């Protein structure tokens, strides 16, 4: 039996003093780094492996395993790159984690650097996070001043610096190999894998790329141990996770809950239920790239395995809620427009597919859809899925496939009536 849920990663969110290094240290900050400085690199990796911490950026790959892939005998430097390009629609947990507890990110990054022998780490922050970049710059300066970054960190003989690098408005740079290209001063387009970044990443050197929340989970794991981390969550999805919930809910926000918490608890108990007492129609479990689920799936536990079993993906844990007044065709069209806009243009199925899908969905939404448009849309996913360098277009296909799967009748109605069936209905209600 798990203990009663408690806030762990977000426990100091109500205490603004931790934003500064003195406040952070007063709460035990940088103690984990001091411990890690006295550990063998292999022991750090083993600890993180034992915790079962999975990457919070979407794919859920075990962080410790990722670190263990990095060869340290190549004669090249190794790099830790923090992926703070948080751009998945509906996702803002990394933003708030950094706003409220920036030093925890630096500490987690430093521990990861020790684990793979890295001397220069990079934080890639999306350009639109101007304010959060400033917070990190200040934190880095403070950590340098206090001797936790720079030469001989924490009184050891280890040198480490963290360089902040700002993106410039490209969703694709959240994809790790596109991010590396961007950081190298190239267009942010994904690379062919293999070689994987662990072997040939930044500047063709071994590189670990982790999400913000993943790295922020590391200091507690080092300090309190893997068993402590596993007190919450499930066997395969251990720990707590900061979920974002937005759209048609009473209290949108970021909430930390154990992995495996059912959507019902997040939506009804934590976020106050669907806005204005309406009913749940559809929701994304992890941003717009994860297949839509419906009210039928409200008891799905939010962990990697259960969400996959329900036909979707946990992704970034970003729940966007549509209520019964929201048009699924309209939502699907808007999400598809995003992918068409953000497609980097490298791969034909993505570049052409997202562009055409946006147009076809647009005409259906506007009431000019043709009956043959529906089979074309239904067929499209399989020509896109897994046929590009990265998963961007898979996200676009997921939106279309899942909305057609669960709401086929609503699409048919649009074509049959030549308009959105919901809009007129609700206009009449309003009169």
């Amino acid at each position, binding site marked *: 039996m798990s203990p009663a849920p408690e806030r762990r990663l977000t426990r100091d969110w109500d205490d603004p003093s931790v934003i500064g290094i003195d406040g952070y240290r007063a709460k035990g900050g940088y103690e984990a780094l001091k411990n890690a400085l006295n550990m063998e690199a292999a022991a750090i990796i083993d600890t993180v492996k034992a915790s079962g911490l999975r990457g919070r950026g979407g794919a859920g790959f075990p962080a410790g395993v990722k670190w263990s892939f990095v060869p340290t005998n190549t004669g090249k430097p190794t790099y830790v790159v923090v992926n703070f390009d948080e751009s998945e*629609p509906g996702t803002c947990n990394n*933003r708030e984690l950094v706003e409220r507890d920036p030093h925890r990110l630096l500490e987690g990054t430093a521990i990861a650097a020790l684990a793979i022998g890295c001397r220069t780490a990079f934080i890639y922050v999306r*350009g639109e996070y101007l*304010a959060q970049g*400033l917070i990190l*710059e200040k934190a880095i300066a403070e950590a340098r001043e206090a001797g936790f970054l720079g030469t001989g960190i924490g009184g050891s003989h280890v040198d480490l610096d963290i360089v902040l690098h700002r993106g410039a408005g490209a969703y694709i740079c959240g994809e790790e190999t596109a991010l590396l290209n961007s950081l190298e*001063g190239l267009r942010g387009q994904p690379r062919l894998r293999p070689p994987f970044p662990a072997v040939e990443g930044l*500047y063709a050197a071994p590189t670990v790329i982790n999400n913000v929340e993943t790295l922020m989970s590391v200091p507690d794991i080092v300090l309190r141990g893997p068993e402590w981390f596993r007190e919450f969550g499930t066997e395969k999805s251990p720990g707590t996770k900061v979920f974002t919930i937005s759209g048609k809910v009473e209290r*949108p926000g970021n909430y930390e809950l154990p992995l495996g918490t059912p959507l019902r608890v997040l939506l009804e108990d934590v976020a106050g239920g669907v806005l204005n007492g309406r009913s749940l129609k559809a929701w994304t479990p992890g941003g717009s790239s994860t297949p839509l689920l419906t009210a039928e799936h409200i008891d799905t536990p939010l962990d990697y395995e259960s969400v996959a079993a329900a036909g979707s993906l946990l992704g970034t844990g970003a729940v*966007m809620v549509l209520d019964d007044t929201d048009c699924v065709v309209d939502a699907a069209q808007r999400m598809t427009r995003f992918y068409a806009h953000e497609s980097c243009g490298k791969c034909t199925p993505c570049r052409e597919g997202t562009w055409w899908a946006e147009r076809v969905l647009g005409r259906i939404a506007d009431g000019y859809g043709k009956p043959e448009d529906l089979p074309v849309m239904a067929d499209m996913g399989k020509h896109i899925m897994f046929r590009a360098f990265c998963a961007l277009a898979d996200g676009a296909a997921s939106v279309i496939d899942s909305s057609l799967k669960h709401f086929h009748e609503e699409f048919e109605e649009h074509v049959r009536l030549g308009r959105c069936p919901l809009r007129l209905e609700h206009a009449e209600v309003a009169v």
Partner: protein
Amino acid sequence: MALFEGERLEEAKGILGRYPEGRERSAIMPLLYLAQSIEGHISRDGLKEVAGLLDLTTAEVEAVASFYSMFRLRPTGTHVVSVCTNLACMLRGARDIYEAAHEAAGMRHGQELSEDQLITLHEEECLGVCDFAPVVQVNFANHDLVTPERIREVISALRGGDVPEPSRGGPRVKSFKSASRVLAGLEEAPA
């Protein structure tokens, strides 16, 4: 007149120094931000000068600059107003905000820059502020829970020469140029 000279050249050299030796090309993005902070957008000359600093061709620099939406290769307003209309904001009324912003700025649909060159207005993809949707950024500073009335006030304040206070204590960024300087990593807090 060269963009990078005197103090600006020193700043550009400082930016180059952030990256490992031999990896100066990584500085291209902050250098483009620096060029943008001087001119208000990135001109042909800006591209050339960045290329000169990095020993690249202008085409190589343009290939990078044109990839990213936050690098502006055309004349841009003193202030950039970005209205998020992605799903989380759309569900909370973002389309009305976008309409109201156009109307308040006296701009036609499809028009991006106001006649007086004061405001560049555009629809934006998810800004990562879904917890306070609908959200608008003015020079990349967040304005949360925006209503049509509030966006009219924001536009009118900009017209009156005042940059409204952002939400949740965020930095007040006085112009797009100033934002670009912050994004080049050259300001602790925006001037």
